[in-house]
C-alpha cells in the first residue's frame, strides 16, 4: 500500500450528438478548464497528465501529441491509455497509482471522445478475432444482443423490466445539467414502441453516441485536503481481464467473469460484505438496459435471476435503497473514451457531496465501474471523509 490519494476536482463538458461548436482539443480543454476552475487550480499545480480515448473512433493516431499545448502538458510527463470502453476508469486508476506510489503529488486525468467524427461500428469490428469473428460479427449492438438473449434466457427478465431501466436513466439525466439525453416524460410504453436494433434490444434500450470529455484531478494525502474540504478517497481499485473471443464465455452477460473478479476484489479491500447495504450509491458502466439488470446480479446487489425484480421494486431508483446511476448513466451520456471516467467523476461528486440535483443524501461510499465489452473491467470504491 502506498499513500492515500483522492479525487479532488471534477470537470465534465456539455454533451451532444455532435459538438459542432468545438474541435477535439477545444472540447477537451472545456473539461480541463471546468475541472481546474471548480477548485481554483491552475496548470502550474499539475505534475503529470494521464489521457485516454479510442483512437480508431476518430481516426487520429497518437492524439496526445497534438493535444499537449491544449491541456497544459507541454514539458510535463503525459501518459496515454487506449483500452476501449474501460479507458476512462483506467485513467482514474492510473492517476491513483501515480499519486499513491509517491511519484507525483497532483495528477490530471482526462478521457474524451468525439464519436460524431468517425465510424464507431466499423471501428468496433476491428476488435474481433481476425481469423474468425471479424467477418461474422455485427458491430457493438449485434454482438451485445447475442449476449442479451443469453441473459434473458438465464434470468427471465422481461422487455418491460429492461424498459424501466431506460426510463430511470433518462429521467435521472434531467437532474444532471451535463447529461446528453434528458427525457422527463419518457414512459415504458415508448421504450417498448421504439424500433428493434437487434432482438431483444430496442433503440431506447441502448446508450447514445455522444461527443464529450471529462477531467479529474487526483491529489495525495496532505495536498488533497488543501484543495477541497471533503476529497473522494480511493478506498480500492481493481482491474480484471477476460477473453475477447465471444464463444469462450457464452454466458458472458449472465455471468460477467471480469466484473465478478474486479468487484469481489474491491469489495474485499474496502471491507464491503453486503454491497446492497454497504454501498450508498453505484455509478456503473451499463451499455444497455439489459446489461444494467445483469450487472445488478453480477455486482451482488441481488441474487442471481433477481435483476428484474430489483428494478420492479424501485430499489435502484434515485430515492431507492441502493441508487444506481443517479447521473443518468451511460444510457443518457456516452462519449466512449470519457464514459468510464464520468462514472468515476460522478461517484467522486457523490461522496464529495457536490452532485447537485442528483446528490444522494449523506453518500459516503460509492462504487464506480468501467466496462470493455466484458473483456475488461475496472472497479473502484471511493469514500468521502477521512482516507
Amino acid at each position: 500500500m502506498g499513500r492515500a490519494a483522492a479525487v479532488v476536482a471534477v470537470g465534465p463538458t456539455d454533451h451532444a450528438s455532435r459538438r459542432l461548436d468545438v474541435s477535439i482539443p477545444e472540447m477537451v480543454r472545456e473539461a480541463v478548464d471546468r475541472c481546474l476552475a471548480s477548485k481554483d487550480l491552475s496548470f502550474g499545480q499539475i505534475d503529470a497528465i494521464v489521457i485516454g480515448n479510442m483512437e480508431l473512433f476518430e481516426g487520429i493516431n497518437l492524439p496526445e501529441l497534438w493535444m499537449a499545448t491544449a491541456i497544459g502538458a507541454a514539458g510535463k510527463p503525459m501518459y496515454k491509455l487506449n483500452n476501449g470502453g474501460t479507458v476512462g476508469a483506467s485513467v482514474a486508476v492510473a492517476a491513483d497509482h501515480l499519486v499513491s506510489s509517491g511519484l507525483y503529488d497532483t495528477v490530471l486525468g482526462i478521457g474524451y471522445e468525439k464519436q460524431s467524427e468517425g465510424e464507431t461500428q466499423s471501428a468496433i469490428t476491428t476488435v474481433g478475432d481476425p481469423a474468425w469473428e471479424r467477418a461474422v460479427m455485427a458491430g457493438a449492438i449485434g454482438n451485445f444482443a447475442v449476449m442479451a438473449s443469453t441473459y434473458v434466457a438465464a434470468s427471465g427478465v422481461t422487455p418491460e423490466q429492461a424498459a424501466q431501466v431506460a426510463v430511470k436513466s433518462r429521467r435521472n439525466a434531467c437532474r444532471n445539467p451535463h447529461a446528453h439525453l434528458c427525457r422527463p416524460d419518457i414512459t415504458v410504453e415508448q421504450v417498448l414502441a421504439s424500433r428493434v436494433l437487434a432482438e431483444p434490444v430496442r433503440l431506447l434500450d441502448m446508450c447514445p453516441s455522444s461527443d464529450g470529455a471529462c477531467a479529474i484531478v487526483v491529489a495525495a494525502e496532505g495536498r488533497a485536503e488543501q484543495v477541497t474540504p471533503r476529497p473522494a478517497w480511493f478506498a480500492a481499485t481493481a482491474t480484471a481481464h477476460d477473453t475477447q473471443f465471444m464463444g469462450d464465455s457464452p454466458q458472458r452477460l449472465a455471468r460477467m467473469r471480469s466484473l465478478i473478479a474486479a468487484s469481489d476484489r474491491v469489495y474485499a479491500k474496502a471491507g464491503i460484505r453486503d454491497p446492497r447495504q454497504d454501498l450508498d450509491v453505484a455509478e456503473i458502466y451499463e451499455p444497455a438496459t439489459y446489461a444494467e439488470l445483469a450487472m445488478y446480479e453480477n455486482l451482488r446487489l441481488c441474487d442471481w435471476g433477481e435483476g428484474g425484480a430489483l428494478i420492479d421494486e424501485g430499489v435502484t431508483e434515485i430515492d431507492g435503497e441502493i441508487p444506481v446511476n443517479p447521473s443518468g448513466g451511460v444510457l443518457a451520456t456516452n462519449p466512449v473514451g470519457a464514459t468510464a471516467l464520468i462514472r468515476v467523476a460522478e461517484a467522486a461528486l457523490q461522496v464529495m457531496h457536490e452532485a447537485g440535483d442528483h446528490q444522494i443524501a449523506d453518500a459516503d461510499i460509492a462504487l464506480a465501474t468501467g466496462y470493455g465489452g466484458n473483456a475488461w473491467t475496472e472497479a473502484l470504491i471511493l469514500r468521502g471523509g477521512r482516507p
Partner: protein
Amino acid sequence: MTLSEELILHQKINLPYRYTAGTVTETFLEGLTERTIRGTRCAACGHFSVPARPFCPVCSEHTSSTEDVEPLGHLESWTETPHESGSRVFALIRIADADNVALHLVDADPNTLEEGMALEPQWTPDPEAEITAIRAWRPIRET
C-alpha cells in the same frame, strides 16, 4: 457560436492491413478449403476448442495438434438484426462436442429457431481459407 457544416473537414484514408494467421489458425483455415472444421484440445486441462486456436482459452497453455470434428452445430443463443437487404441472424453455435461456442450466421426464418437446434454448415461453392467459407449455418431438416 456553432460552426457551419461547410467547415467540417471530410477525409477518407485508405488503410489496408494484413494478418498472419499463425501455425494453428493456418491449419484451421486450410481445413475450411476441404470443407473440414478443426478444433484443438488442451493437453494440460482437456478443454476442447472449436475453432482451433493456438492457446487454451481456459488455462493459457499452448495447443499444438488439431483434430477434425463432425460438421454439426447446436444453436446456443441468437439475435435477429434488421437490415435493408433482409434481416440477418447472428448466433452462438456449439460445434461438435466443443467446450466453447462460436459466433457465426444462421440462415433460417428466426421464428423457426429453437435453443439446442441442430445445424449444419452451408459451404460456399469453392471454399477459400477464411471463415466466410462457411456462408452460414442452417437447421438440419428431418428426413
